[in-house]
């Protein structure tokens, strides 16, 4: 992959990793005795690995000018593999955490193995590690194809990917040694947050620079969604992480917000992370790969527009439904609730547009597990948004809040929607990227699909049951007017469901393991045929220098 870089880019890459190394060494020295020092070492080691990779490929012959006539896909390939590795890691930890809830003693008396530290390792691993890398990798692919333009340079896509994965690594390792700012989905401390800001601005600039070079008169819907994802995540990330470090040599910092303002800022962030990370980005993915794989035109351009603006507008107001029945003023809760209900309509427009696009291709959905992944994803997207709007209604939330119902909703969205759309996308994209006719094994794709379906259904049904039982037990009064169950009683009642969830989760976890094997074998296949298989499509000639 280094051989694709020009000599100048290789030199800049070495300089950048050298700068990172210096930064790591400074942190390691200045942060001695503080967890920051550990992170200094990790940064330095990471920089050495990156630099090593660049130097190893440094003397390879420089690429010719003909590289500019082809799309730049090396970062996409890299991102696909890394996303799969994160999927395996994150879901492994997810299943571990699931067993831990069923058998809470399973912590070997070690701090790092406690539930509170492993849980964010799971959420960060899957959302940012798996989901984020998948989004970045596919966005590079989609923006080039739909703009008929090459990425403007070959270095910034790598800066984004390498920097982003460093952020993920710092996040995950930080939780294990006890670093967190205790904001869900925004746990990493100030220095990791600053790193992500730099990465994200680079990403944003890369994206608009590519769009600016486009050869198509119009910007395709998928790009609107990817752009919304990049832009809004930047805003959310910066505002929610405003904090004052205790000192520059310590990991700890204090948020700029306090009390209920802090809670509201956090859930404005948290909900829009769901909206623009776990929804908008993946809708972008769906809008490209689903019609492509189905070979059908998008059902309605007009629905795309209404759906897009509805989703972006309504989501922004909905965050307060995470704080129903709290110290948050009632009017804020009511606003969030009503916007959440209205949000259902554009959400279903997007899901409906996807499913209607499949009209005329249902036989392919039946026969092709890859397309079936994407079709099921659209169904689960519809399902989880319906559920979400329902749960946002205050009286419903008074039952569902704090219970496993929320966890069921989360995983209907993340397993059924997010993961399935990614797997469907990857199984389409991998043969295109490595220029082979198809995946190494269709049977394994089929296996993956059914494991994912079974895992999702077991998970979600277990949590619905457990959540509703839990919610009811917490509010059942006896005829004397006092609560009928203690909290421990509800824990006992949940135990069987926790075991079921962990088993379902294990099935789901097997999916990416099989998937990575299948992808690696496909790559081997492409080496054997030396990429003589069919290309994704006749590359519309890119003029040199464009």
């Amino acid at each position, binding site marked *: 992959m280094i051989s694709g870089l020009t000599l100048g880019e290789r030199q800049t890459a070495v300089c950048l990793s050298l700068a990172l190394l210096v930064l790591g060494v400074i942190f390691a020295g200045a942060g001695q005795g503080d967890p920051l020092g550990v992170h200094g070492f990790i940064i330095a080691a990471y920089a050495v690995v990156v630099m090593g990779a660049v130097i190893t490929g440094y003397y390879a012959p420089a690429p010719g000018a003909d590289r500019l006539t082809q799309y730049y896909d090396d970062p996409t390939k890299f991102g696909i593999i890394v996303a799969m590795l994160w999927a395996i890691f994150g879901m492994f930890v997810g299943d571990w955490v699931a067993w831990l809830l069923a058998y809470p003693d399973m912590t070997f008396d070690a701090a790092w193995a406690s539930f509170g530290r492993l849980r964010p390792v799971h959420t960060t691993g899957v959302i940012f590690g798996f989901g984020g890398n998948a989004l970045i990798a596919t966005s590079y692919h989609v923006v080039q194809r739909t703009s008929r333009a090459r990425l403007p340079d070959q270095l910034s896509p790598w800066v984004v990917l390498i920097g982003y994965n460093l952020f993920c690594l710092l996040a995950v390792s930080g939780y294990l040694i006890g670093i967190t700012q205790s904001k869900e989905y925004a746990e990493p401390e100030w220095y990791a947050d600053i790193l992500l800001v730099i990465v994200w601005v680079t990403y944003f600039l890369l994206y608009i620079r590519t769009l600016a070079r486009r050869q198509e008169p119009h910007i395709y819907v998928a790009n609107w969604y990817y752009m919304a994802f990049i832009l809004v995540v930047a805003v959310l990330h910066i505002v929610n992480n405003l904090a004052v470090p205790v000192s520059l040599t310590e990991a700890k910092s204090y948020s700029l917000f306090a009390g209920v303002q802090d809670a509201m800022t956090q859930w404005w962030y948290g909900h829009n992370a769901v909206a623009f990370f776990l929804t908008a980005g993946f809708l972008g993915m769906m809008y490209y790969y689903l*019609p492509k794989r189905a070979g059908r035109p998008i059902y309605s351009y007009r629905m795309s527009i209404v759906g897009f603006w509805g989703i972006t507008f309504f989501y922004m107001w909905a965050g307060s439904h995470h704080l129903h029945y709290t110290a948050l003023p009632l009017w804020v809760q009511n606003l969030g609730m*009503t916007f959440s209900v209205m949000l259902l*309509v554009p959400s279903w427009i997007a899901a409906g547009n996807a499913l209607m696009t499949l*009209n005329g291709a249902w036989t392919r959905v039946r026969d092709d597990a890859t397309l079936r992944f994407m079709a099921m994803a659209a169904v689960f997207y519809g399902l989880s948004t319906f559920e979400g709007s329902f749960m946002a209604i205050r009286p419903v939330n008074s039952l569902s809040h704090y219970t496993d119902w929320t966890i069921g909703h989360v995983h209907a969205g993340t397993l059924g929607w997010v993961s399935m759309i990614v797997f469907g996308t990857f199984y389409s994209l991998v043969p295109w990227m490595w220029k082979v006719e198809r995946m190494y094994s269709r049977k394994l794709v089929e296996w993956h699909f059914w494991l994912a379906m079974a895992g999702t259904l077991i998970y979600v049904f277990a949590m619905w049951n457990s959540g509703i039982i839990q919610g009811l037990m917490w509010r059942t009064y006896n005829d*004397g*007017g006092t609560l009928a169950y203690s909290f421990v009683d509800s824990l006992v009642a949940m135990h069987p469901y926790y075991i079921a969830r962990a088993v379902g989760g294990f099935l789901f976890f097997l999916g990416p393991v099989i998937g990575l094997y299948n992808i690696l074998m496909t790559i081997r296949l492409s080496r054997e045929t030396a990429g003589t298989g069919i290309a994704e499509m006749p590359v519309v000639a890119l003029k040199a220098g464009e």
Partner: protein
Amino acid sequence: MSVEKRDPHTGYLTTGHDWNGIEELNTPVPKVIYICLGLAFAFALIYWLLMPAFPLGLTYTKGLLGVSQHSLIDADLQQAQTDQQTVTSKIATLSVDEVRADAGLMHYVRATAVPIFGDNCAACHGIDAKGGPGYPNLTDNSWLWGGDADAVLETLRVGVNDEQHDDTRVSQMLAFGRDGMLDRNALLSVVTYVQSLSKPDAGTVEAIGAGREVFAANCASCHGEKGAGSIELGAPDLTDSVWLYGGDTQSVFNTVYNGRTGVMPSWEARLSDVDRKILATYVLSLGEAGQ
């Protein structure tokens, strides 16, 4: 360039755009979507009119129903109180023994006490109230601080060794070994003697005899001449087979070597008078069942 095509399957025209082979149909937005949007908006609008919804600088729109989160919760609490009133007012005025004599009230006490006990006490005393090492069994009718209603009520109110409460019960088993009050031989013999009080064949006659002397000199002040304990000091009866910290040689040795200071939290600030009375009644009824 834009060339509109007709899709054979749906019959709609495309928009004429083509992105790497992806086309879009120009299908109009189905009417049902506008209807749903309208309905959702109408719902929101009505809700905004009736309930607090929008900020107005320093205040906010109050809504036609005049509801606030506080008025809602107050109404709920009021309702709960009236629901409970008839029974709880009776329990509040009657004595524990009178409550125990009333089958109807006892039915209520059991139903109510089980969840309160599960939420507040089970973490230490176990869901079945049978305790564990360091946490007394509440069902065995052997009491550190006395088994009449007043004693149990007082234990619940002030706790044991709880610094948070000024009137807390205080008790301490001294660390005879760690603080160097007894040497190793004396410790071993007194341990044997203590064990022999409930199990006569616990050791040799010499050891027991030596232990008896150590006991009389060091321990009897709290545990009594015969080792039967003291309810005033919370010192356990050592002659029965009930052990708080364990009766095997190692456990008894640890107790005498390191001392013990069991902490039972006070509940005066956390549970209402009636709830504490319900718990005391319940706990006492467990002991009765165990007889």
